[in-house]
């Protein structure tokens, strides 16, 4: 009887000290602060606006988290996002609804190609993923500028469906009312979550964690590690693609430069959400929590009436505290575990 109790206690302790849970705690605190600052935080229209504002970073962070779990980085995710909006608006013609379908297909193929190129550099050519994706980010930017030197372009009307169904002409009214409760970006996120859920139940998901945890061991176990790394970048690219659909739906235009600020925020979000910088550890779903926290930082600063000049500084400090907290928490957990480890 006794040993099972101790074991139960030990597993309980290891659950509590999981680094992810510190991020949940931070999230609750931040939501409370945001709700206190913004009276109508939880009310319908304002909540919808919040979800629309938060959605893209969530999608991008999930992609980045997949890449980081595999022990890689993607410094080109913002540039790739910009590129996809450029391709979409380059292909589409406002007066020909069918071009929307073509645009989606072509951009999807481009997204897969982007993932393969990044993965080829990191996986087969064995160049550091930071270097590879930093270099390719200029490639994506260059192609984007070639297609769309200045922001703009055309979009079919029904692309609004990725942002707000109420803006789509000829949409049945009951669907429009659905849109006022469940915004399309939430559905995009849900699609992303389902996509990841099935991957995590298949070999691919396990292999991403194995390669991120110890590439050499994974290779010796007969896993084609370079292929797994390519797959990780392609999955990431698909998440970026989903975010691009949302942005073109919202803005009805493309821009070769607007995505850049997202890149480092996705990495920060993933780390706050408990994804290890060294790979192999962390949950993709908790990365969403990280993205929510990073988003809330900006929201709180806005509603707290902090002057713009200091806003960035305050945001920086909060992010550092959040990341530092997550790291300390997990370091403490590890130390506690190693100290207790002896007689068995």
């Amino acid at each position: 009887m006794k040993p099972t109790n101790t074991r139960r206690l030990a597993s309980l302790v290891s659950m509590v000290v999981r680094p992810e849970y510190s991020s949940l705690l931070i999230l609750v605190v931040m939501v409370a602060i945001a709700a206190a600052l913004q009276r109508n935080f939880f009310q319908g229209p304002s909540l919808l606006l919040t979800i629309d504002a938060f959605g893209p970073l969530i999608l991008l962070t999930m992609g980045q988290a997949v890449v980081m779990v595999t022990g890689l980085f993607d410094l080109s995710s913002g540039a790739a996002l910009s590129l996809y909006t450029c391709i979409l608006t380059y292909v589409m013609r406002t007066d020909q609804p069918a071009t929307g379908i073509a645009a989606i297909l072509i951009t999807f193929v481009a997204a897969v190609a982007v993932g393969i190129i990044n993965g080829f550099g990191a996986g087969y050519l064995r160049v550091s993923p930071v270097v590879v994706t930093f270099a390719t980010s200029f490639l994506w930017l260059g192609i984007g500028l070639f297609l769309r030197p200045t922001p703009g372009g055309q979009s079919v009307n029904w692309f609004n469906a990725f942002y707000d169904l109420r803006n789509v002409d000829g949409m049945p009214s009951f669907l429009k009312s659905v849109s006022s409760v469940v915004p399309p970006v939430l559905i995009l996120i849900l699609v992303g979550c389902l996509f990841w859920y099935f991957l995590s139940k298949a070999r691919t998901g396990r292999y991403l964690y194995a390669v991120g945890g110890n590439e050499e061991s994974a290779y010796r176990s007969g896993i084609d590690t370079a292929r797994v790394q390519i797959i990780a970048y392609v999955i990431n690219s698909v998440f970026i693609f989903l975010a691009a659909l949302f942005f073109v739906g919202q803005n009805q235009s493309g821009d070769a430069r607007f995505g850049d600020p997202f890149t480092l925020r996705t990495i920060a979000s993933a780390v706050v959400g408990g994804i290890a910088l060294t790979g192999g550890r962390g949950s993709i779903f908790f990365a969403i929590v990280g993205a929510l926290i990073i988003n809330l930082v900006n929201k709180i600063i806005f509603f707290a009436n902090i002057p713009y000049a200091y806003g960035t500084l305050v945001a920086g400090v909060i992010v550092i505290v959040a990341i530092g907290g997550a790291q300390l928490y997990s370091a403490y957990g590890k130390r506690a575990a190693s100290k207790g480890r002896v007689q068995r």
Partner: protein
Amino acid sequence: MVKILEAKGIKKRFGGVVALSNGNLSAQTGQITGLLGANGSGKSTMSKIIAGVYSADAGEVIYDRKVVHYANPHEARSNGIAMVYQNLSLVANLTVWQNIVLGAEEKRGLLLDDRQSRELSREIVEQLLPGLDIRRTIDSLSPGEMQIVEIAKAISKRPRLLILDEPTAALELAQVKSLFSHMRNLAAQGIAIVFTSHRLWEVMEICDDTVVFRNGENVAQVDLNRDGRDPEKIISHITGETARTRQKTTLRAANTGASVLKVSNLGYGTVLRNVSFDLKKGEILGIGGLAEQGQRELMLALAGYYPETSGEVELEGRRIRLSHPAAAVRNRILLVPGDRESEGLFLRHSIFSNIVFPRLGARGHPLFTPFSKYKEECRKTIDTLTIRTAGLDMPVRTLSGGNQQKVVVGKWLSFDTKVLLLSDPAKGVDVGAKRDLYDYITRRVREDAMSVILYASDNEELVDFCDRVMIMYEGQIVATLEGEAINADRIIESSMHVGNRQEDR
């Protein structure tokens, strides 16, 4: 008995180093073949070529009556060749069962069938190490348990040829015995096994025949069943010298020396409890016991790795605080750590960089590094320790295990060492290099009255070199042996710590 494997005339070079010049090896179904040789003799390379990790530069591998060229381990494994690696091939963040099935997961349609995978893993683990929870992650296991998981992983693939590359290095005696009985079972089922170990008695006990490698080629094949089990003869094949009778180093006169390091009530969590001892000048103090009883942690604590320890440490009568590794180095308490690859070396850097590195951080280092002077010193170090290498600038990675260990010791050579901490220095080190190392250390002890604390997992080393031996059990020192009491029987007896167990609880 069928000859399932025959490798002929295998050659392999890594850059400028010839790992194998002419390797030959064969294995029969139902037989256990021992693979012996000093580190760097090419036996690991040989195993890895057969398992598809490396490809041979020349020669042919005949497996199952066909000439094979495997491009990767996966191909070899799908043909029934499984290998247990010297450096573990486990992924630390995954669980035991996830590791066992890694690369060959059970599937149902597109998705993983984890229930089936767990069932399979549990079955195998149950045979090898009953009671191990397969849901634990690898990073929470002891080195011995990890090794067992590694073996379970290889067996789970139902191989026809199983290559075990030093599987017993991290195991304690009981685990070795249980592994051996399982190996006999596998052999009885008709599996061919190739077994590598540095411990001669293990090969004597388990193997049917043995192949000895030296300097990249096989120099002898001994059928142990027919020719008898004579260790001296095999040692002479390994070293290439006529067997010399081992002489016991008797320097047991120094016990009367002054106290150098006095430790009282050292504690660290539950890992170290009330550790007290007094190390004399010119003494080699041994630490023994079963595996994982806190010996490694004691060495790390004395080297300043655990700032939160309780208790007192006095160096030559002066109280010191070992709050940081730099503090230990400043006090000339120098550690040769147990895991040389991750704790002792910069594997990709040159021998020179590795040896000179501690100097750069030492107090009183000149502003501009006198490189030519250091190079000269480094050359001397290489001579003194007989490190076998093509030059100062060779990456440490290219050296054999024994020579790597000499580099770790060489790091501290230029320091005026007061206390040298040796954490299992002969682990994974071949017979020749081991002799060089201990020759050097005993000479320093005799000539410079250096004091040494030696933790060795091999009791023979404790018996041969130590003036006193302390036995650790569950983080405590449970016995101290002196003089005639230092012999293998007494060490094993004290390690088990049979008496007075209730009092501890």
